[in-house]
């Protein structure tokens, strides 16, 4: 008796389980916990400084400039680009691809795995950082919401990058550092194509602290990254269907 087509939810669950197991390595966890702890320590130092007039504004700037740029995007990049990218490069993708499963559950399962692993490594240190700065409940709430939205979007985009590019980490860093860090500051269209603008908008909308690139509504700050994630996953599914597998 040969295998039977696998239901889509089962396929998501199976892919999720396999990818989570492959993603969580001691080296990755240690490195990214250290980065998260460093952000929390910097926030704590700022919170303890006497010369801070407005802890909320200081907190928003630390979370937005350091947390979203250096932590959320990088953590999501490390895990999401590896979610299917590693399997594609080492040849184990065949053990998911040559199966009686649709393609989209593989993309969704891998994205879910990357997001699941990334969330605790980003939400916890940034929530700790926001409370160490003593910016109040709104800062912590805004931080958690923006971080979750950021991880969801970045993870989907970098899962796609892992399927598209051989050195997806390098491409991802290029996007984070050059596009989001530099290009987005010079034009509206470029800014609209940067996830960072939406996470900053969420924190700005909730805390009322003005930030560069943070001029969108709360609804747009949440909805657009989710739409971007869905689009990235659709493209990842299509890429899985069309790509060559080693």
């Amino acid at each position, binding site marked *: 008796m040969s*295998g039977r087509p696998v239901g889509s939810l*089962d396929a998501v669950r199976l892919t999720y389980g396999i990818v989570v197991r492959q993603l969580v390595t001691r080296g990755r966890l240690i490195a990214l916990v250290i980065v998260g702890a460093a952000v929390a320590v910097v926030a704590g130092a700022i919170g303890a400084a006497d010369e801070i007039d407005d802890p909320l504004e200081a907190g928003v700037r630390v979370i937005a400039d350091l947390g979203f740029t250096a932590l959320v995007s990088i953590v999501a990049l490390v895990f999401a680009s590896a979610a299917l990218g590693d399997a594609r490069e080492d040849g184990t993708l*065949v053990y998911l691809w*040559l199966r009686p*499963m649709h393609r989209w559950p593989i993309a969704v399962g891998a994205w879910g795995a990357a997001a699941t692993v990334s969330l605790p490594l980003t939400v916890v240190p940034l929530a700790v950082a926001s409370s160490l700065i003593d910016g109040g409940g709104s800062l912590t709430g805004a931080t958690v919401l923006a971080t979750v939205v950021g991880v969801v979007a970045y993870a989907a985009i970098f899962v796609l990058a892992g399927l598209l590019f051989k050195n997806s980490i390098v491409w991802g860093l290029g996007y984070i550092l050059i596009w989001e860090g530099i290009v987005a500051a010079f034009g509206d269209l470029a800014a609209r194509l940067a996830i960072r603008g939406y996470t900053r908008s969420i924190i700005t909308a909730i805390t009322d602290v003005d930030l560069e690139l943070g001029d969108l509504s709360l609804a747009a700050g949440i909805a657009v990254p989710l739409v971007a994630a869905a689009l990235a996953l659709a493209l990842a599914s299509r890429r899985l269907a069309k790509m060559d597998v*080693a």
Partner: protein
Amino acid sequence: MAGWAPPAAADLPPPAAPATVADAMVEVEHVTKSFGDVVAVSDVTFSVGPGVTALLGPNGAGKSTLFRLMCGLTAPTKGTVRVLGADARSDREVRGRIGLAPQQDALFDRLTASRFVELAGRTHGVADPTAASHRALDHVALSADETKPLGAYSKGMRQRVKLAAALVNEPDVLILDEPLTGLDPVQRNRMIRLFHELGDDGICLLVSSHVLDEVARLGSRVLVIAQGRLAATGDYRDLRNLMDDRPHRIRVTTDSPRPLAAALVDRGLVDGVSVSAAALVVDTTDVDGFGRQIAVIARELGARLTEVEPTDDDLESVFRYLVERR
């Protein structure tokens, strides 16, 4: 032998007509696959029915690319590939009826063998994946109770795990890319027996190898792939005969190359000869006669033989010969 129509010995190289069978389970029609400027597979046509079929060819001949095409892992540049009447690239149901043990060594190294094979069963939609994984591991003589992660397995054990994962869904078409590499002789024998049993059960089993002696033991049906083309198809024994019948090139190192060359030509033992200062290279189709006579002739001439060595007695040269004959 069901489903296979072995051509006459003389048909072996080149394939006079597409090597097709009546009850084909795998059909490859005029398939070409290019990677940029590199043509990996060139206008290949054949079909394969139930039983064991060996895909023989040197490394880089295009065997793995053909297997990838069959499994839908890559799309042909031209032509069509159908497995069980469908394209595995787009047909989900057919993918569940294929088992593949790929050539590359990569596995989920942190899993145990039983977990890996069980997961293969689950992702294949097998009803009882745990029981199926135990059966598959038993087939390849691995214990389901082994707690060691796959990363700690030897090359041979990893090969057997790949094979078990390919078997777990009890596929109708089983594709094994160099499955005997890294196995010790005992395991090799066991696997070959298993392949024959599976073939006898009606599975379409395709096994690739670049080792002629392995193919001899895998079965009599052979597809010879060389330089991306189907160089020959047919019965293994015909290929063996062809190897013996083809011209052989032999280098003879001696202190009297010219007299020795003249004597070999006079006695009709060689088809061609080239002479240098301390050696001659001969082409002969009568290897046995040459081997019996060379020492006798040298003694008669008072020539001293330092070395008599075939320069083309390897599989590569056989493939080259087959390709050149096309």
